[in-house]
């Protein structure tokens, strides 16, 4: 316990790092995943921009990268991280890898949720003369907004989970803190402190997500 109090500054720093890493990964991965998911949805058979080659390509790419376990994925994308964020190690490299992994996961979540929008509603929008871009922004996304918020909340939890492997490439955050100072130095109190804070963080995010989704869906 004394050790934990001693480590408190590092603990808060690790918390800040987790928020930074997960926040940025969700921002970039969220946007890229939204675009990729929309791409999958609109190019699928019978959809508003039906194109089997584009759909087939996107589908193949997502299916190829999404199942790779993150602990391997983060090591494998190091060369790419060096090109994009200038380094293969540390928080920025970790954030890049997380954003990339989140992109693929989010694209499927987005695709699934958009598929719950009744095709008839899209047809009604087409029947009044709305074009594809207008349908996406004014009908498709608003109609699916509630489930999308819940989907993003789900991915936030998954990304927080994945961020715990940070130590592998020299990144920080609460997960790394728990392993570094708790597990490796035989100090369960430190491990548990990190675990509890992660639980609190996730509860808060889930609560906000549920509230938002309920407000949007009016139930």
């Amino acid at each position, binding site marked *: 316990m004394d050790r934990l109090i001693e480590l408190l500054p590092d603990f808060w720093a690790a918390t800040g790092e987790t928020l930074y890493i997960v926040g940025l990964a969700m921002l970039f991965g969220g946007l890229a995943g939204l675009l990729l998911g929309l791409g999958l949805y609109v190019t699928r058979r019978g959809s508003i921009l039906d194109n089997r080659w584009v759909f087939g390509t996107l589908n193949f790419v997502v299916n190829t990268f999404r199942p790779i376990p993150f602990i391997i994925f983060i090591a494998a994308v190091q060369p790419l991280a060096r090109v994009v964020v200038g380094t293969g190690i540390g928080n920025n490299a970790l954030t890049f890898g997380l954003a990339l992994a989140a992109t693929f996961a989010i694209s499927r979540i987005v695709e699934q949720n958009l598929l719950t929008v009744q095709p008839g509603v899209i047809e*009604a929008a087409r029947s*009044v*003369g*709305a*074009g594809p871009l207008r349908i996406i922004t004014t*009908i498709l996304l*608003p109609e699916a907004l509630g489930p999308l918020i819940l989907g993003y909340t789900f991915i936030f939890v998954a990304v927080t989970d994945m961020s715990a492997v940070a130590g592998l490439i020299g990144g920080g955050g609460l997960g790394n803190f728990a392993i570094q100072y708790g597990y490796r130095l035989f100090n369960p109190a430190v491990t548990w402190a990190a675990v509890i804070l992660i639980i609190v963080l996730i509860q808060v995010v889930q609560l906000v997500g549920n509230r938002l989704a309920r407000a949007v869906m009016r139930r």
Partner: protein
Amino acid sequence: MAIIQIADVTKVFAARGRGEAPSAALDGVSLDIERGDVFGIIGYSGAGKSTLVRLINALEKPTSGSVHVNDVEVSALRESQLREVRLGIGMVFQQFNLFNSRTVWGNIEYPLKVAGVPKEQHQARISELLHFVGLVDQAHAYPDQLSGGQKQRVGIARALATSPAILLADEATSALDPETTREVLALLKRVNEEFGVTIVVITHEMEVIRSIAHKVAVMENGRIVETGDVFDIFAAPQAEATKRFVSTIVTSVPEGAALEVLRSKHPGRIVTFSFADGNTSQSAVFLTLGEAKVGFELVYGGINEVQARTFGHLTLALTGTDDAIDSALASIRSVATVTEVK
């Protein structure tokens, strides 16, 4: 000049999977719909009527043949050129297809936004439509707070927002109960009569055709098997499919179980007399039978009204000598259609 001209159209949908044959939804359909008409298209599910109506606003493109609306060949336009055409054609759907993320107001406003109508004109147009469909109090409700009938009235208001010349109604009453169906049909009738909107009604219910249509086309297996004025179709259906539809609301010559019941009660001769207004008089029939000393009893059938004209099929059980009956029937044949029921 017909407002909608469909000429020799076929529509083939690509095979869904390996080993499945492509399916022809439309097989050589030609149809002209005149301005101001309420045109009914009736058929069982899978007959191709939904595909046919979607050719008119180009939600579907024909595999061959052409579709003209207001002399514009809509089947030849690209998706990006269709906005203008679709603003002139409203559409209502069986499942209403309202935008659940928008209020009643927002649903009706959407086509105005797509059409680029200046924002300051929205208020007047939307409240005019809300009054017309009787939903002023529900303006700020969301679709999931409305009943089926109210949803369809929103659908109609939305379809009329841009003052289209044509309204397509795809099974617009099929998800509604009979009472609500009558209300919605009455509303469609007003749309036609007050605004002169040409309405194309898709349905599988003959009652819908009888209530509001002026002309009707009967579809079966991707073809139009019969078309004409609603009165003529009801009074004298020709094609088998048409006869089946007409028989759902008109009792004509007794058949099957109904006939067996009649036979067991009336061992004598049973004859059906068919009347269409304007060219026959029932009294002539009854007078002739009376003069020939043929007894008669009305056992089956009835008189129907379509578009304020009447027609009917009356089945009588006759009593008397065969000679008397034969000579009476011979003279009646000149004023009514006579069918001896075997």
